[in-house]
């Protein structure tokens, strides 16, 4: 059976599918003005390149999230990069052993600004059940984290929710934030120049 086109352009109640709200600004015939930071935020948040740093079972949930059923690509994150130099979002998924700590930090340092970090699951966020001598008790001991996703492991819906929280942060971020004093202090608290 052919798939009727209306499923792609209308939602269940027959209404047209919602398009994302435009940012605040002035509209006239043939033009639209708004703040530069809004435009930049809109562009950035809908074209995030994630770098998956998957070390254990959370990584498996992430694979489901990338698959066709949950489909992270709907959020503009189709392109999963495996080079930190090209990526905007470091997704840390799984237990990080203390020996892995410096590796993770190195990957973070290789990413270009602006960069965001998402910590998925109990282990990455706090060490989880691995309360032991060999496991890092939360990646925020070595790099700053923007969003934490709870769960062991979190469901793909939770990953999407966390990703949307990242999008929110990215979209609302002032373009001067990364030059600010507060941000510099945050980096210095982690010993990052």
């Amino acid at each position: 059976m052919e798939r009727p086109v209306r499923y792609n352009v209308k939602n269940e109640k027959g209404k047209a599918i919602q398009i994302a709200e435009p940012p605040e600004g002035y509209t006239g015939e043939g033009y639209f003005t708004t703040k530069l930071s809004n435009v930049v935020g809109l562009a950035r948040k809908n074209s995030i390149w994630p770098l998956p740093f998957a070390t254990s079972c959370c990584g498996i949930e992430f694979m489901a999230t990338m698959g066709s059923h949950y489909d992270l690509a709907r959020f503009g994150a189709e392109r999963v990069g495996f080079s930190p130099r090209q990526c905007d979002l470091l997704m840390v998924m799984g237990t990080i052993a203390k020996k892995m700590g410096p590796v993770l930090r190195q990957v973070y340092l290789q990413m270009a600004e602006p960069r965001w970090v998402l910590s998925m699951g109990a282990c990455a966020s706090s060490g989880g059940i691995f309360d032991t001598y060999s496991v890092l008790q939360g990646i925020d001991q070595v790099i700053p984290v923007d969003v934490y996703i709870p769960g062991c492991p979190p469901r793909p819906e939770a990953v999407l929710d966390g990703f949307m929280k990242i999008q929110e942060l990215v979209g609302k971020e002032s373009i001067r934030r990364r030059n600010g004093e507060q941000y510099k202090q945050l980096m210095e608290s982690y010993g990052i120049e």
Partner: protein
Amino acid sequence: MAGNRGLKVHSSEMALTNEIIRERLQAKFGDQLANFEEPYGMLCFEAPKDMNLKLLQFLYDDVELCFQFLTTLCAVHYPQQQGRELAIVYHLHNLRDNIRIRFKIFTDINSPDIFTATNLYSAANWMERETYDFYGVNFVGHPNLKRILNVDEMDYFPMRKEYPLEEATRIDKDDAMFGR
């Protein structure tokens, strides 16, 4: 008979058994070896701390024993045994007769100096590093005795039963929630 030409038949040799091994060891070392046991059919015994190399060399070189494969090597911590807190356990395998033995040596935790087996068994290299990493056994003569699994900055031996199981840097665990 022509078909058997390529085969060596050890008709005169008896298969190696635990009794033969035990007799040969006692003939060589007398009553220095103690606590002979055979749990699940595997010959086990204890040896004095400074004799581990002599014993390994004999087990390796002896034409009948031929224990030329080191299966594994590890340590055990017995905190309640004063003066012999650390046990170092060797598992050896005779591949020709497919027979295994196990022996332990005990040492004081304050002077855990043991001769290395790396010159005899190359496999002992990483095993001894691991044993050093987790129990702090000092293998005298080891070519590269440094940590192998844990981070280099670690300043204790985590598998000794004198350290808390839980990580000290953990901050999110509320004692009341864990019944403490």
